[in-house]
């Protein structure tokens, strides 16, 4: 009798073990972080070792998919004592859209269908800042046009972001250095954040993003410019893969008139603090109390 019950136990244990082996075998063939998704654990909650594994898997997946063996995916953490802020000099911006294309070049946005994180709004000087009257499709032979000024708009990296509050799965959040990021592996594609954002700064991959292999920027960050899958939302991250290593964002460096400023808000002697002290600074849609870290100013 006792021998019989032991047999049944052995049978059950071995059946259980073989099921688990089957699941893990299936899981090994699945996409990155599949086990974690099943266990409802997000990338940021994992151990360093497991993160490293996931990054390696992700790199491998990107390399195979796009046929390039130099693609790297990092998870560079926020620097201590740093809160990023951005300044844009409206008195200098000429609306040339160099920043728009530099951003696309840097951040691996889909070329077709086209996704651009920066939109340059052309506004008329006699209207002032008026979103309803603004035009993003302006295409004259030369800019600036004498009766217009230009307001480039991308993610404002709000201190009280509406987009992160509405996310049903916490796939988007604010990092310690102020950058609002998205975990593409976790994003459902419900687009609630897009409707919550008052700046139109979030963009959706309606199809599989298409980039030519040779146009890919291989230096990527998991929450930034990594190659995104179909059906996820994406946005400006202040070039997280550059700025966390100390570099200026791509749009700052390309701007031919030097209208774009970037730096650490906590650095008393830095250029951001100087311009906030000395210049006429404002934020977009202040009345919404999103408290952006993106400051527009007039230097003259």
């Amino acid at each position, binding site marked *: 009798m006792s021998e019989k019950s032991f047999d049944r136990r052995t049978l059950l244990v071995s059946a259980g073990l073989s099921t688990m082996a089957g699941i893990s075998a299936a899981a090994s063939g699945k996409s990155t972080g599949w086990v974690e998704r099943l266990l409802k654990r997000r990338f940021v909650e994992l151990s360093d070792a497991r993160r490293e594994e996931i990054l390696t898997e992700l790199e491998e997946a990107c390399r195979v998919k796009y046929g390039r063996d130099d693609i790297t995916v990092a998870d560079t953490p926020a620097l201590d004592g*740093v809160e990023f802020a951005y*300044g844009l000099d409206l008195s200098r911006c000429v609306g*040339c859209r160099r920043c728009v*294309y530099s951003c696309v070049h*840097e951040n691996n946005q889909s070329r077709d269908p086209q996704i651009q994180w920066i*939109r340059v709004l052309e506004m008329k000087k006699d209207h002032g800042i008026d979103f309803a009257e603004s035009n993003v499709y302006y*295409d004259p032979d030369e800019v600036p046009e004498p009766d217009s000024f230009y307001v480039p708009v991308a993610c404002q990296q709000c201190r009280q972001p509406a987009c992160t509050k509405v996310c049903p799965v916490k796939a988007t959040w604010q990092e310690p250095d102020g950058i609002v990021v998205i975990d593409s592996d976790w994003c459902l594609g419900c687009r609630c954040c897009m409707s919550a954002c008052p700046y139109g700064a979030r963009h959706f991959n309606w199809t599989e993003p298409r980039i030519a292999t040779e146009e890919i920027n291989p230096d990527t960050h998991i929450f930034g410019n990594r190659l995104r899958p179909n059906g996820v939302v994406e946005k400006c991250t202040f070039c997280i893969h550059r700025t966390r290593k100390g570099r200026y964002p791509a749009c700052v460096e390309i701007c031919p008139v030097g209208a774009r*400023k970037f730096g650490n808000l906590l650095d008393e002697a830095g250029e951001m603090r100087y311009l906030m002290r000395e210049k006429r600074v404002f934020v977009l849609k202040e009345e919404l109390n999103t408290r952006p870290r993106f400051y527009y100013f007039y230097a003259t």
Partner: protein
Amino acid sequence: MERPTGSDLVNSDQEKLLPGSSSLAILLIVFLSISMLILFSIVRGGVGHVAEGDGGRQAFGPAEISGVEFDGELLPGIEEATTGPDQGEFLVPPPPWSESGYFPCTECHADLDLNPEPRVLEEMHDDIELNHGPSDRWCLDCHNPDDRDVLRLINGRLITFDESYLLCGQCHGTIFRDWRQGIHGRRQGYWNGGKSYLLCAHCHDPHAPAFHAITPLPPPVRPQFLARTAQEEAQEAPHE
């Protein structure tokens, strides 16, 4: 003949008016619905409502744009200025010489007699358009008459072309202050380390400093044309 009473008049008028007002109402409804339809189609922004010459019909990527260097190299020395012994140093590229390569100026001017008289230059430097401040401005306000390889400040101090910002800063004090703080002009490199500045003359022609208009890059594609290429491919695929 009996004169119609007041009430009769009103009644007959109403009878007369009624068919008129109802047709007016119908006309009004028709007019309103047509105008609403037009309004909706404008608001919706249908394909037909984009004017012929307007941009935004085609998606451009950075690869299709020529004349803009998206992969610009940093100045050599910036990495060292970030991590090396010269940490925090600001680098400035050499001043832009006119394309004909005039420098050093003394190669010619050492042998020429000084003519301080403002005049139209004919033999040399006739490409210089002087449009900077007061109309009586002349070369020797900034260029040193005795040694043309250097510039001269108002106080008589001689400076090289590498320090030309000091000359500009004599008049443009507020801009000069902003430039030193990094608020005016373009910086490249590391926000927390080595970075490069540009001299005033890299962006502004000192002789005619107003910033010239430039050609904008193409506008974003309009939503109604967004997926056109993908759709066209999908339609073509079954025929192959």
